[in-house]
């Protein structure tokens, strides 16, 4: 039970932090911010990892975990790279100026 009560506190504080983090966002950054936040939501890869590790060599579980991990990493790696690609275009302009 102690994990869950702690976890609920964590959930609450994490949500409050998230609400505060994004204040005024310039419109230019809406798209990159969305795709960046999207990449972070792929953090669920940790759950997939844990699932695989704790599977106890149960094959179906390994497969489910692995597919899940694949989906999550598709999200994470794709998300960060595409965000970087967008942001690189903004920063390039500034250095050249």
């Amino acid at each position: 039970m102690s994990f869950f009560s702690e976890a609920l506190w964590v959930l609450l504080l994490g949500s409050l932090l998230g609400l505060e983090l994004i204040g005024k966002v310039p419109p230019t950054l809406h798209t990159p911010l969305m795709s960046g936040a999207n990449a972070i939501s792929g953090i669920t890869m940790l759950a997939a990892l844990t699932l695989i590790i704790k599977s106890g060599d149960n094959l179906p579980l390994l497969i489910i975990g692995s597919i899940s991990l694949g989906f999550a990493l598709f999200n994470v790696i794709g998300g960060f790279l595409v965000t970087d690609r967008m942001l690189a275009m903004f920063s390039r302009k500034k250095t050249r100026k």
Partner: protein
Amino acid sequence: MTFIAPVKFAIDLLAVLLLALGIKGLSKVRSAREANRLAAIAMILAAFGVLLNSQGTIGISTSSWIWIICGTLIGGFLGALTAKRVPMTAMPEIVALFNGCGGMSSLLVALGVALFPSADSSDGVVGELIRNFSIVVSLFVGAITFSGSIVAMAKLQGWLSTPSWTQSKARHFFNILCAVIALIGGIYLSIDGQNGLFLIVVASSLLGIGVTLPIGGADMPVVISLLNSYSGVAAAAAGFVVGSQLLIVAGAMVGAAGLILTQVMCDGMNRSLVSVLFGGALGASSAASGGGGEYTNITSCSPEECALTLEAAERVVIVPGYGLAVAQAQHTLREVTRVLESADIEVTYAIHPVAGRMPGHMNVLLAEADVPYEQLKEMDVINPEFPATDVVLVLGANDVVNPQAKNDQTSPLYGMPVLDVQEARTVFVVKRGMSAGYSGIKNDLFDLQNTSMVFGDAKKILGDLLLELKELGVGSKGKN
């Protein structure tokens, strides 16, 4: 062995800190790129922490390693490939796709845990109930995120249209039915941890489709942003399922931040979240009631005339829209503006908050074409400047320059912030045909005296315009 737990703890703390700094930094132009990298580093750290801790405590079996590496390589490779290949115009679709996969991942974790419950359920009755409940949430939100995102992507790509039944009241019935079935499945599963599993998955997938399908293209970015927030919630729920606090913090942060971002976007588009979700496609239901009518006074002209007018201008404002991006004409546009600038004509770009297909999308596209950042003016800045503008060039934009939004109270667009291009001396609208914009509403601008239509593909017209300008000798005088 004994030092691993504190190390893992430190890594987790560091990862959360970096993630928070990353999200924070992503909302400032100056720090955005570093922030994105920080967040990426945080993710690597977090994964490393999990691996280290597991290896040190329970050990990771060889077969586990093999499956981990397989999943990582395949998913990572496909993700990297997609990210490199995708054209900037398809950005909204691709965010939706990535997001859907995140949701799918959470769903699969919950599915795995529910199908093969581990023996170490030492949490007591209450703990078990909470765990089952987290599984339900994870399945429910994960399935909605996945199916909703895929529908959003398909609609943006034009693979799916809006079926007419989704505009009727029937869809509310359908959605409520799905929600109720999912709820029943959820209650079952919460109690005994097995039954109702697939009931939830199927019903919530259908719910995701049913909610997303009726939403029109213009509102889709808001939906994607909302689904993005959901995938954070799904991740947090998965965190409860596998017992990872880091996952809970990160998921909660993304979920909450995504909600704020959704709200910001809604404000920019002058739409309320409720009307986006339950109002259906903007034009489809309301085009008949208001804002309809025929065009009476269309003037069309050739690129040549357009070039002559541009040559005589001193201040030119470009209004880029999604049509420009579709035609991949931003580079040709840049050529044209270079010529104009070299003839000492002042060129600025008026960026509507929702230009392109997603807030900020147009800025990305123009940045790709090397347009200087400081030439992009936001709506509030540029609107007072239109009366002093000689020529406005509207490229593939429609609803965002519709004066109906200001003048016609019966128009469905009424109240939406628009660019006041009609205040300028001459307006050229480059457009493929007379078809309506996303909203499906007639644009009064096209009927005005000072508006001329230049029909054709934006890239071709701009190419012609470039040739005409060069023939007129615009820009070459300055250099000689």
